[in-house]
């Protein structure tokens, strides 16, 4: 192993300190520098700081962010979120491993170019299946495309992103506004390039408009989305814009003044295209009207509270936030209301925790306020880790001031002077925007000492998570902030009494804080007027899966599953049949299509065996195997168990063993009863929320789809998903085009031009490539062992 220069470690220690609680930031800095955590660095830290070998080893091996071996030049992250899973993420992963010739669990290719890793969720659910290579996102993948993708990535990298500086032309007169959504998922879809291209066009032509980045619009199925607002306030919306179309769209609405400028630009092919029919087409293709039925349906039932002004305001422009009533609620909380009054208001509003469990926020705040002690803390739980959920990321990225304001009001109410954001390290943009917003707030007197000239002070800072889903559990989150392994502990005592550094601590979720300013501005009663008897206000959901229109939505509590799926989402895509929605991610359950009239609120979902959870909502169709879905979620929670208590550490693994053997066709008589009993005991006996809710996906599918489990026990997967229980076969529709033979990654289909092809089932890995590639739809999936019969008939 090469010698490692430890100078950076010394610098990091000098910058971050040598106390035991800085171990996570220290390891993060080291990995940022060396791209992994070298053993030498760990040893050096033990010598130079108060951190012990036991501490640092425990922490460095607990959080999956930390790598202990050097990695390839580029890292390929394969998203295994729910939406990606149902759309074939594991097939993509297998294809990449084959392409890179990875064997026996290797993760880096022999040239050290690419390292392949699984990630829980990249939060680009509407692009599923998705991979990211060093920050570049590729969506809608298929196994057959991976070679091309790697090639494309390397080509981009070799060409580099060198840009010529453009000549800047300043526009004159009244300006229009061009809003480009720049949430992480929009960026993944290409809105960054669109934004850049528009800036360039404006600079080069002096077109009378200013480009503005805005937060998430929520219409992920339409991204990149560009909104043009004329000086008169007229709005035009363009969807699925790509960078090449952007100039035409802009110049058509905002014509540059002066002929010379137009001539100057006419060399560009864009203006040529502007005149051509082709461009006309392209404009028509992209233009959508907010009154269009689908858009109406998508936006109609929504109610934007946490996401107020979505798609309209620049996330980090404080002045714009102030113009939109920003910090009015905080002023009211400081100048007009006593802490007790604030809590009474929150209590009256009926607000409940949006992190999933739905604990009444007013009660929690009152408990922290009532707890003895001068020193108290407020924490913002931004460790959103459910696969298929990215609401909190969107809120943090798009409305950083709103969340800060909510936290400040909470701090004022409970009597805290210091607070922390705990944000997943996988959300770099969220971290960046919150950091920027905190700095600006401190400069402008909304944070720090004597906020808005009162006696109220609040310091906020950020702690980045390190890849441990369980840290979304509040006691684990606290352990993580303290620099320990993120192990939950038994409650009581609750954090309200004994939290961060044993002090009374308020822990609320991002969305909960985001709703607080609205409540104080509009009154508790307005909030309570929305929703159902026990679940007030709105809830933000990430709608994804087998649906026409996916995205982020905010709806009043009490809308039905059917409204969300059919009305907002436009129903199931691809002519398939709606089967169920999975609500609440790995802690939640499936609501079957027959119960789609169920109103979405805390109690009703619990009755169904699902939970509100943090708000992932994945639509499943008849091609989805419910046993596989249960196994998928259980594998996730099992993988994220902290490993402390027996029921969760071993119990979830044994449940997974049973599900594995059922999916592999080795299920035994009595397995369903054993699974059911164990699931209930794991749920009853685990000490934290992760273990208690981990069995939910299994219990709810056992409840509503037991026949599917029984079919598996009989060796059949009704949806044709479980590889061990299916065969692929080529039917008589085959015209002998040889595409499948060429694409088959394991040469299981002999090359036979103009003849009916056949699949060698011994070699076949059920990767689905032939089925996807066949232009004649001549490849079918059928239950294992029935191919012989098929042939006999043919």
């Amino acid at each position, binding site marked *: 192993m090469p010698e490692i220069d430890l100078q950076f470690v010394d610098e990091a220690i000098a910058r971050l300190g040598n106390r035991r609680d800085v171990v996570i930031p220290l390891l993060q800095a080291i990995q940022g520098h060396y791209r992994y955590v070298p*053993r030498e660095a*760990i*040893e050096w830290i*033990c010598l130079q700081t108060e951190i*012990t*070998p*036991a*501490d*640092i*080893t*425990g922490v460095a*091996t*607990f959080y*999956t962010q930390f790598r202990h071996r050097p990695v390839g030049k580029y890292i390929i992250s394969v998203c295994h979120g729910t939406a990606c899973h149902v759309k074939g993420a594991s097939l993509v992963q297998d294809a990449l491993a084959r392409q890179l010739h990875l064997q026996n669990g290797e993760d880096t290719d022999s040239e050290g170019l690419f390292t392949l890793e699984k990630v829980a969720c990249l939060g680009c659910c509407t692009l599923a299946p998705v991979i990211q290579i060093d920050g570049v996102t590729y969506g809608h993948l298929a196994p057959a495309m991976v070679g091309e993708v790697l090639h494309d990535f390397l080509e981009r990298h070799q060409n580099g992103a060198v840009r010529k500086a453009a000549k800047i032309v300043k526009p004159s007169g009244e300006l229009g506004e061009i809003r480009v959504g720049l949430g992480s998922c929009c960026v993944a879809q290409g809105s960054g390039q669109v934004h850049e291209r528009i800036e360039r066009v404006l600079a080069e032509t002096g077109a009378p408009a200013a480009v503005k980045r805005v937060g998430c619009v929520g219409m992920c199925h339409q991204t990149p989305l560009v909104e043009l607002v004329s000086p008169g306030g007229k709005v035009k919306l363009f969807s699925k814009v790509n960078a090449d179309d952007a100039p035409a769209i802009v110049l058509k609405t905002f014509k540059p003044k002066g002929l010379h400028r137009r001539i100057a630009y006419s060399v560009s092919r864009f203006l040529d295209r502007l005149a051509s029919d082709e461009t006309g087409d392209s404009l028509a293709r992209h233009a959508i009207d907010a009154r269009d039925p689908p858009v109406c349906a998508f936006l109609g039932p929504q109610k934007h509270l946490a996401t107020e002004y979505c798609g309209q305001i620049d996330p980090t422009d404080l002045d714009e936030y102030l113009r939109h009533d920003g910090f009015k609620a905080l002023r009211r909380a400081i100048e007009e209301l006593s802490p007790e009054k604030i809590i009474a208001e929150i209590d009256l509003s009926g607000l409940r925790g949006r992190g999933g469990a739905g604990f009444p926020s007013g009660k929690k705040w009152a408990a922290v306020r009532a707890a003895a002690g001068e020193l108290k803390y407020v924490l913002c739980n931004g460790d959103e880790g459910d696969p298929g959920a990215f609401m909190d990321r969107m809120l943090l990225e798009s409305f950083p001031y709103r969340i800060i304001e909510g936290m400040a009001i909470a701090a004022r109410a409970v009597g805290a002077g210091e607070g922390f954001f705990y944000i997943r390290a996988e959300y770099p943009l969220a971290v960046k925007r919150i950091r920027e917003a905190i700095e600006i707030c401190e400069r402008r007197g909304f944070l720090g000492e004597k906020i808005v000239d009162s006696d109220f002070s609040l310091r906020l800072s950020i702690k980045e998570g390190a890849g*441990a889903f369980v840290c979304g559990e509040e006691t684990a989150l606290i352990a993580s902030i303290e620099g320990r*392994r993120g192990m939950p*502990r*038994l409650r*009581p005592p609750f954090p309200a009494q004994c939290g961060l550094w044993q002090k009374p601590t308020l822990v609320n979720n991002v969305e909960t804080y985001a709703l607080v300013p609205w409540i104080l501005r509009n009154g508790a009663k307005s909030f309570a007027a929305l929703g159902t008897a026990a679940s007030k206000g709105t809830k933000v959901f990430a709608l994804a899966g087998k649906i026409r229109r996916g995205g982020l939505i905010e709806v009043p509590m009490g809308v039905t599953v059917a409204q969300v799926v059919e009305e907002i989402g436009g129903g199931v895509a691809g002519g398939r049949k709606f089967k169920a929605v999975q609500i609440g991610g790995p802690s939640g359950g499936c609501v079957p299509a027959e119960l789609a009239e169920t109103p979405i609120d805390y109690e009703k979902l619990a009755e169904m065996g699902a939970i509100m959870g943090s708000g992932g909502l994945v639509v499943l169709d008849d091609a989805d195997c419910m046993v596989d879905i249960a196994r998928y979620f259980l594998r996730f929670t*099992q*993988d*994220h*168990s*902290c*490993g*402390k*208590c*027996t*029921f969760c*550490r*071993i*119990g*979830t*693994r*044994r449940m997974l*063993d049973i599900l594995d053997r059922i999916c592999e066709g080795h299920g035994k008589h009595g397995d369903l009863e054993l699974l059911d*009993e*164990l699931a209930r*005991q794991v749920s*009853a*006996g*685990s*000490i934290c929320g992760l273990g*208690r809710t981990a069995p939910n996906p299994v219990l709810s599918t056992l409840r509503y789809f037991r026949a599917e489990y029984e079919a598996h026990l009989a060796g059949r997967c009704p949806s044709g998903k479980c590889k061990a229980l299916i065969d692929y076969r080529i039917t008589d529709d085959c015209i002998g085009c040889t595409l499948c033979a060429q694409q088959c990654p394991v040469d299981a289909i002999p090359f036979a031009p103009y003849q009916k092809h056949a699949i060698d089932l011994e070699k076949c890995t059920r990767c689905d490539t032939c089925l996807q590639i066949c232009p004649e739809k001549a490849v079918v999936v059928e239950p294992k062992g029935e191919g012989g019969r098929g042939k006999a008939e043919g």
Partner: protein
Amino acid sequence: MTKITIDNRELEVPAGTTVLGAARQLGIEIPSLCYREGCDASASCLVCVVKINGNARLAPACATAVEEGMMIESETAEVHAARRTALELLLSDHLGDCLAPCFFSCPAEMDIPVMLRQIAAGDLRGAIATVKRDIALPAVLGRICPAPCEKACRRRELDGAVAICLLKRFVADVDLATAEPYLPVCETASGRKVAILGGGPTGLAAAYYLARAGYACTILDENAELGGRLLRETTPEELPREVLAAEIAQIARLGMEVQLNRKINAAAFNDLCGRFDAVLIAAGHAAREQADAFGVAATTKGIHVEHGIFRTDRPKVFAAGTAVRGKSMVVRSAADGKEAAAAIDQFLRGATVTGQIRPFTTKIGRMEGEELLRFAEGAAPDTREEPTGGLAEGYVPDEAASQAVRCLHCDCRGLHACKLRKYSAIYGADPKRFKGHRRAFVQDAQHAEVLFEPGKCIDCGLCIQIAAKAGEEIGLTFVGRGFDVRVAVPLDRHLGEALQKVAAECVAACPTAALAWKASRGVDLAD
């Protein structure tokens, strides 16, 4: 003071008492593995769960403080089922043999490893006591047994099985050659009488163990001398008759009546049933032909008995050995005699007749290759040697000691201290209920006195806590997360470096002997 109710019994305890502590005051033993007085409760094993106020969630008693009016359920079917599951889950990932493979492959279930350690330590008096606890005719069996125990010996695949059978014979021969051969202490005479038909290995063993248990035995044999199939099926070269005679004499010394040349017909059998409190048919496979005369049901193989209990369908009549099995190894017959004696004892004491209860154990199962080499790391290097004086002579003491020390100590060093085993036995936990993928065996033997077997660890973290509190420089830590979390020495150091101050405390705290004294359970007899 806080007033609470546990299993419908009210009591008052000081505020802050845990449910575990409160239950103890009522004499309710809530099982717990990870809890230790003086350490922070980790609430990780969850074997101590209780139900509180009818809540669907169960709570760990070790970390739950009492609250006024709390209603606690401890000894209910639901709570017990959850505790059993917790134990079974721990067992499903527990890599260790409570009792060695040789123990279970010996039909008589003799504690072979303990005998071997006693021989190695020169404690031959202790060794014969160990042997005779389960085998009444060791000098005999030491000559004619096919030694299934040696087939299961883990050392067999490395450099030959430990010479268990010859060593047992060595122990017995040495004993018989002493002026006062070993005699067990018998229970006080109960006044109950047992008739035993047949003086072969089954009948002799039964007589020995019944006599030990305080019963007056009468052996009735149709032949002119005792020995049964031992006389018919062996040559004097294989089994010198004086050895057989000496060992039978040792049994007879416990006090019993022997009636030779007694043929038992239906009338005589009925008479026995009238005069004795129990009758054991141990008259070999020929007894099958007399089933009608004895008034008991039979199958084609032999007399029909309840499996493991040896009870026939006729009241107070038992049958064992080849009378039941048709044919079997001699050691199987001897084991049957011992087990039937246990069943008869239960019957005569008026207890539930269960037969001999198999001791609880977890099993690693087969090991080979690298894994087996790792397992045998640090074992005595001697290879298997036959007696220099020839098989007929047997080992001399030095040879015996150096052969005995070859034992790999497969049985657990913490057999009697292990809380997992203790509660698994009490709660009837089935180690195979959640059988999963078996981990590979690893051990850290680099500490001078303490052996660390991570496969036995239940991740309670007590040792980590104790080492951290004591300021051990290297100490111990959890490595990894979730199912794969393991207690380990950080930075790839070894246990000797990790525990320089508090090794003894850690061994004492370890609930499953994952950390154990290398030399423990050397010669202890109690089980």
